[in-house]
């Protein structure tokens, strides 16, 4: 990967994380889950590998991203805004009743392909779109981002059976493997490992990468590009709350609603300063 692009993506990911933290007040958002997938979302939109960006928004041959783990939508909003799908200023409308920027994706927001929030839905919706693309001979890809906790849902595996049967090699599942469910570690509640074996058993070509390392993400997607005849999965090992040590790998920092002062301290921490002094207690919804 080009070194400049790599540096640009790192800078973009930092700004995206800052936006996520700014959305973590005044009602809050799913901060921990958003921070874990920020680098993945940035890679998808900014690596140049996929036909994604404001220029392609109405292009029928664009690649498409479906955010099935919808609660990490601040990472998507922030990336879309930074890339010009809509003005960055609009992020201040987060949770405003007259806008559509709420805790889960709404496809009325430019760049958002479909509604989500209920887990285990968008693999099938993505499969429908992938089938359509095949039918019309398009070379575009459908990328469905799923959370690891979301893999508890049977509909994910049901969809994989069908996707494999129809040899949907334009369908790529991206697993944000931050190893947490809403309230606890996945391996403490519903263990998922060996996760690669499970995806392989359902007919996918699987790679596993560090979901915070753009070079490794690039390696994984390069390998997937060569595969034909079956759906693909890229398991991205990530860290909940990545980038902000005070929030990292914390079961109680999934959904966060900090004070404005705490957010400023967390942004300083993101930039390498001392840990924020957090008084707001952990707020686990669900």
């Amino acid at each position, binding site marked *: 990967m080009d070194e400049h692009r790599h540096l640009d993506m790192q800078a973009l990911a930092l700004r995206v994380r800052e936006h996520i933290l700014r959305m973590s007040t005044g009602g809050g958002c799913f901060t921990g889950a958003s921070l874990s997938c920020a680098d993945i979302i940035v890679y998808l939109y900014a690596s140049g590998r996929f036909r994604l960006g404001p220029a392609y928004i109405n292009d029928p041959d664009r690649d498409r991203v479906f955010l099935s783990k919808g609660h990490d939508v601040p990472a998507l909003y922030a990336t879309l805004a930074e890339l010009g799908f809509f003005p960055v200023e609009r992020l201040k409308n987060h949770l405003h009743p007259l806008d559509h920027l709420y805790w889960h994706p709404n496809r009325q927001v430019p760049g958002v392909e479909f509604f989500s929030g*209920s887990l285990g839905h968008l693999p099938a919706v993505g499969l429908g779109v992938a089938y359509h693309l095949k039918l019309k001979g398009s070379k575009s890809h459908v990328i469905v981002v799923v959370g690891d906790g979301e893999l508890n849902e049977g509909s994910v595996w*049901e969809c994989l059976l069908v996707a494999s049967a129809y040899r949907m090699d334009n369908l790529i599942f991206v697993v944000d493997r931050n190893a947490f469910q809403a309230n606890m570690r996945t391996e403490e509640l519903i263990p998922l490992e060996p996760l690669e074996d499970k995806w392989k058993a359902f007919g996918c070509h699987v790679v596993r990468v560090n979901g915070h390392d753009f070079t490794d993400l690039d390696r994984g997607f390069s390998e997937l590009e060569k595969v034909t005849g079956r759906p693909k999965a890229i398991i991205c090992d990530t860290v909940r709350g990545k980038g902000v040590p005070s929030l990292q790998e914390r079961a109680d920092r999934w959904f966060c609603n900090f004070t404005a002062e705490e957010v400023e301290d967390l942004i300083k921490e993101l930039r390498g300063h001392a840990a924020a002094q957090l008084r707001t207690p952990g707020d686990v919804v669900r």
Partner: protein
Amino acid sequence: MTYEKVLEQYCQRHLEAIVLTAENRALIRNLPFALGPRFIDTGITEQTMVGMAAGLATQGHKVICHALATFLTMRAFEFIRTDVGIAGLPVKFTGYIPGLLSEANGPTHQALEDMALMLGIPEMEVYCPADLEDMLLMCEAVWNSPKPSYLRAVHLPSGLSHVTYQYGKAEWILQNSGGVTFLVAGFLLGEVLKAADILGRKGISCSVVNMRSLRPLDEGTVEKAFRQSDMVVAVEDHFRYGGLYTVLSHWLTEHSRRLDGDPQYWAPLFSMSLEGKWFTPTLLPQVLERERLGAIYLVERVEQFLAKKSHRQAGIPQKR
């Protein structure tokens, strides 16, 4: 003509149409050969089929989905509500063997709350043809509507000659003044017509309406029935709650309030339906017998209603 042929011809005229099934091919066995890749069988995966249909619909396809009525509307309910309903996509569902038509399959297969569930989704249209001939007449309009829809399939022919389907319009099969008006959702129409014949010979005037759909609701027909009859009977092979009887009760309540102070006359409403329990699994003639929904029982129950009518009218403005 068959459902399969009507659908095939529709797909020939509408190249954006795609047919999906969750391995329920009873009505569409030959379509894979006719439609090629525009026919998708997802296997026994109602949720995936519905999600996939939503995805296809976002790309401009008219998607017509098939599955057993119970598994389609219940197992995949949240997918219908969330992926199709919230997005308002024109996905068309056909539910096979709804209501009593599941015969001896047992309660797992008895879709007796399917219309209630589908009516609970805003904008979802709910069609309840009386027989195969009726269903074939309405398919084109159902699939052309820009809204999502649920078609309660009836695969049994009746030999009845129906009037051409007009979107949102019910069909008056028998029209007499006063007496009893049967408003019917679904295949019990055949039993109702037999009952009306018996009642007529006993001197009780009857009208019979094939409702054809609960949403859109033919309000003009409903109003006429309540204004011009001595008694209205809602007949449906559905639980009493959530189907035609509920829709009519709701309509009455809304209209009574709107006409507050205006002494209008509304005929009392009675229900013939499944009353809070699943039915005994057996063959259809025995089901009608056991559940007291065959013609003879309908007659008996109308006579009972007529006897009780004065008590049941409490709270409803009376005829002057």
